[in-house]
Each structure stands twice: as structure tokens, then as C-alpha cells.
């Protein structure tokens, strides 16, 4: 394994004060290698999304250390980080500005960083996510959920980052669309040699996408295991087994779907 692209040491995030103090993330460490897909799985509220918000720089109130691509993640806003790490959000209905066309949304990062060839970059990234350039002048309300998520992925890709943080990228979508978006993300990862951190509560998605997965509960990382180990049931914690079995029925259906979509593609 090459040098890690993401390295997180003893990350702690807490909200509130005094008696209502909550340790959302309580001392989490992990490393992700270049080109790897690292999964974070757990029930809602276990702190998995909080980790993404901390290492992306959205939340600056955390302790510990994190480096991405050799660059320490600062505890304040750091515009230069935008070209290294980007994020895809859970709800495509809330992650696109309702008053901005697709083009405006994609042009904004280009303008912020003063990049040239804006129109060509937009065409390229739209093609990459499987949208025709005719979508450029659409508003979000004129798009379906899957199309919106493709636009959100395009927006994350337009600055050509090395790391994509995926916060439940498919859980707000129809099952059939979920498989399409997951396959799209796999294809993009292969083409662009990206590194993913994928947060999900769904082992089906994790098994389909990830190389390694960490199981979280109450802000603590219980264990890290490879997908191979997960599929063969070689987990050390009963919690992991329960979680896995709870979502197994659902995940088998999704895997079949994903394979069908793969075969069709």
C-alpha cells in the first residue's frame, strides 16, 4: 500500500457545553490509501457524517490531527483545500441552489479559483457524469433526483480534487437510481484515480463500493475490516454482526440490482 492520502489521528468533535456536552466523535483514527474506497458505516447519529464535515473543513471545531494529500487540515477555512477534497451530500434536493442553473452552480467554483476554459470544463464534467450539455441551463426543480445527484457529483469534480467525501450519496434516491449513481461513482473513481471516503448506513452500498470499512457506534470506531472479511462474516464485534445482518436482506436485493445495471451498461 502506498503512502496514505488521508490520515486522521485521534479526531474528536463535541457539541454543546457542560451537562449537555455530547462527544459526537470520540477519538477516531484511520488512514486511507491512494485510490482506495474507505467506508464508514453505522447507525444514524453515530458520528460518521461529523467526521466528513470535520476533515472537509466545513466544521472547524475539532481536535486531533488530519492530513489530506500531505496537507494538514486547518482549523479555519482554507480555500486551497477545495482543489484537493470535495464532498457529495446526501440529499440532492437540498444540495443544489434552487435559484441557480446547472451552469451557474458549476461555474461558481471555476470563478472562485479563477480557472480558465470554464465552458470546456463544464462540458467535460457533465459528460463525465452522464448528462448531456443540454442540461446546462436547467434549474434544479426541472431535474429528477438522480439527475440532481449527477449535477452534485459534477460540481464536486469540477475542481479536479483527489479525494471525494461521499455522505450517503444514494440514500435519498430510488433503489433503481441508487445502483446507477453507485456505478457512476465507481466509473469516475477508476477514470480519475480518486480516493473515496463513503459514509453509509447500508452494508449493501458499502459492500458494492468499498475496499475497507470501519464500523462506528456512539462516536467510536469499533473495528476496521476488509470487505472480504465482512462478506465472510469475520467480524470481531457482535454489534457489527447485528448491523450487517439487519441490512443483509435489503443489501442482497440492491446487489442484484447493481449487478444487473452493470451487465446492462
Amino acid at each position, binding site marked *: 500500500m502506498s503512502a496514505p492520502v488521508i490520515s486522521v489521528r485521534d479526531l474528536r468533535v463535541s457539541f454543546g457545553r457542560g451537562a449537555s456536552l455530547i462527544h459526537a466523535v470520540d477519538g477516531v483514527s484511520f488512514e486511507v490509501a491512494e485510490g482506495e474506497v474507505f467506508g464508514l458505516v453505522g447507525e444514524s447519529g453515530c458520528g460518521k457524517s461529523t467526521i466528513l464535515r470535520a476533515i472537509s473543513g466545513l466544521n472547524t471545531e475539532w481536535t486531533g490531527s488530519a492530513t489530506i494529500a500531505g496537507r494538514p487540515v486547518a482549523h479555519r477555512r482554507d480555500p486551497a483545500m477545495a482543489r484537493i477534497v470535495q464532498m457529495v451530500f446526501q440529499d440532492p434536493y437540498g444540495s443544489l441552489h434552487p435559484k441557480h442553473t446547472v*451552469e451557474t452552480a458549476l461555474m461558481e467554483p471555476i470563478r472562485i479559483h479563477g480557472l480558465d476554459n470554464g465552458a470546456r470544463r463544464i462540458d467535460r464534467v457533465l459528460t463525465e457524469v452522464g448528462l*448531456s450539455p443540454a442540461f446546462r441551463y436547467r434549474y434544479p426543480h426541472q431535474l429528477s433526483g438522480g439527475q440532481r445527484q449527477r449535477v452534485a457529483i459534477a460540481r464536486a469534480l469540477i475542481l479536479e480534487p483527489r479525494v471525494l467525501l461521499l455522505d450517503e450519496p444514494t440514500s435519498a434516491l430510488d433503489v433503481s*437510481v441508487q445502483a446507477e449513481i453507485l456505478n457512476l461513482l465507481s466509473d469516475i473513481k477508476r477514470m480519475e484515480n480518486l480516493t473515496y471516503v463513503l459514509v453509509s448506513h447500508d452494508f449493501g452500498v458499502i459492500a458494492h463500493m468499498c475496499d475497507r470499512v470501519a464500523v462506528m457506534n456512539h462516536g467510536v470506531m469499533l473495528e476496521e475490516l476488509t470487505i472480504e472479511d465482512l462478506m465472510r462474516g469475520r467480524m470481531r464485534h457482535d454489534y457489527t454482526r447485528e448491523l450487517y445482518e439487519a441490512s443483509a436482506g435489503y443489501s442482497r436485493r440492491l446487489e442484484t440490482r447493481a449487478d444487473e445495471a452493470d451487465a446492462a451498461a
Partner: protein
Amino acid sequence: MTAEVRTDRPAHGGLRAWLLAETVTSPAQARAQKLYLGWRRFASNPLALIGLGIVVTLILLAIFAPLVATHDPFAQSLDRRLLPPSGAHWLGTDELGRDIWSRIAYGARITLMIVLLVALIAAPLGLLIGTVAGYLGGWVDVALMRLVDVFLSFPGLILALAFVAALGSGLENAIIAIALTAWPPIARLARAETLTVRRADYIAAVRLAGASDLRIIVRHIMPICIPSVIIRITLNMAGIILTAAGLGFLGLGAQPPSPEWGAMLSTGRAYMLGSWWLAAMPGIAILVVSLGFNLLGDALRDVLDPRAS
């Protein structure tokens, strides 16, 4: 889902086809389509059209006052004072023999100027203060909102009176005074709107793209707040007109012989029993214009409200 665009609508000519086309080919078309759909929603409401009609009439009256006025609004003729409405003087004459219709036509200019200037000062000021307070939060929010509280704790007309008393009477000072009382509700509205969107994922996304706070406020937060600010200021127009008329009535706004409607109403009051038209005509003008702005504001809310998609 496939990425292809449905082209079930034929591409052949016509503005309507262009405005409703599925395949949008330019940013101008996208914007025109949005405007057209908004207009269709607006036009389907008869009260909206009445409101718009009244406001447009006010604007036309103000622009073409010299053409529609039948007399010089300042020309006095004491032998024709206090004449009731007739063919020669459509709305009668006042205590100095001036033609009331002509004065109301010229007075439309003053009313429109007050309304426009107040809107142009109060709306951007309120929008800026509200969005900055809402987005930055913390002590900036506390300081700005306490300032708003101070302004809001006085009734608008009283505060305007105090400002005019401090600045001196006159139309310009009345406008400044009214604008200073009109921005706080807008700031509060813009702040509330900002608070609902500042945690939205699309704001997080543009923060991740490296945008500065100023850019986020101006390009991403303000467009969300602008519709409700436009609605609010349009609905406030009636109050602004009434406050201006009130200041005029009290002799603190436009000064004689300027044909300001409130001042006309004020002088007409003395002749109310014998010559009702002196007070009634400017009063009706104020009523109709206030009603027009209210109807327009309600209709704009139906069209622009982001929550009703």
C-alpha cells in the same frame, strides 16, 4: 434514468414555443422561461392585475402629469374657489381656486418619488444588514439585531416625526426619515430567511468550493431572500404612502404649495363640511394607491414565494 433530453415539443418557431421549450439553449432563454412562467401565474389572478393596473396608472400619471392635467396645479384664482366637481374642474377646486385633478396628477410624482426612494434606500439596507447578521451570527448578529430592536420599538410615524424634527421639515428629510423607519422589518425578515438557509447543503457546497463569506452572502444567500424582501417592501408601500401623507398632513413633509396628497388632505380638512371634495379627492387617491400596492404585493407573494413551487 437516461441522460437524454426529451424533445417532444417541436422546435419550430414562435416566441411561445421558445418560452416553453424543453431544450434550453442559452442562459437568456432559461431566465426568460422563468419570467414567462411567473407572469402566467401572476396573470391568472384578477386581483393581481387590478393591483398592477393601479400601480401602472400611478406611474403613467406621474410621467404624463403635464399632459393629463387640465390646469396649472399652482395657478390660483380666487373667484373660482371651492367649486364642486364639474366639466371644467373634474374634481373641483380648492380654497385658493386651484384645480384639484391637476394637483392630484402632479402629486402622483411626489408620491411615486417617495415610494421609490424609500424602497431604494430601505430594501438594500435591510437586506444587507439582515443577511450579514444571519449568516455571520455571533456578536455581529447580536449587535445588529439589538440596533433593529431599538428602531422597531418606536412606532414608525413617531420615529419619522423625531427624525424630521431633528433634520428639519421638507420632502427630502421626510424621505430619509421614512427610509430609516422602513429598513428594520426588512432586516429582520432577511435575517430569518438567512437562518433557514445558512445550514443548507448548497451553502456548505459553495463553502467547500472555497468561496468567501462576502461571496456567499451576495451570490448565494441574497437571491434566496430577495423575493420575500420585494414582497415585504411592496406590502409596506401602503404604509410608506400613509406615513408620507401623515407627515404632509402634520406639515412636516412636503411644504405648500407643493401638491402632496397628505398636505392637500390636511388643508381640505378645514373645509370638510361645506366642500367635501377638498379632502375626499386626495384621500381617495391615497386609498386607491395603497390598495394597489397591497394587491400587487399579495400577488407577488403568490408568484415569488419559494415555498410554493
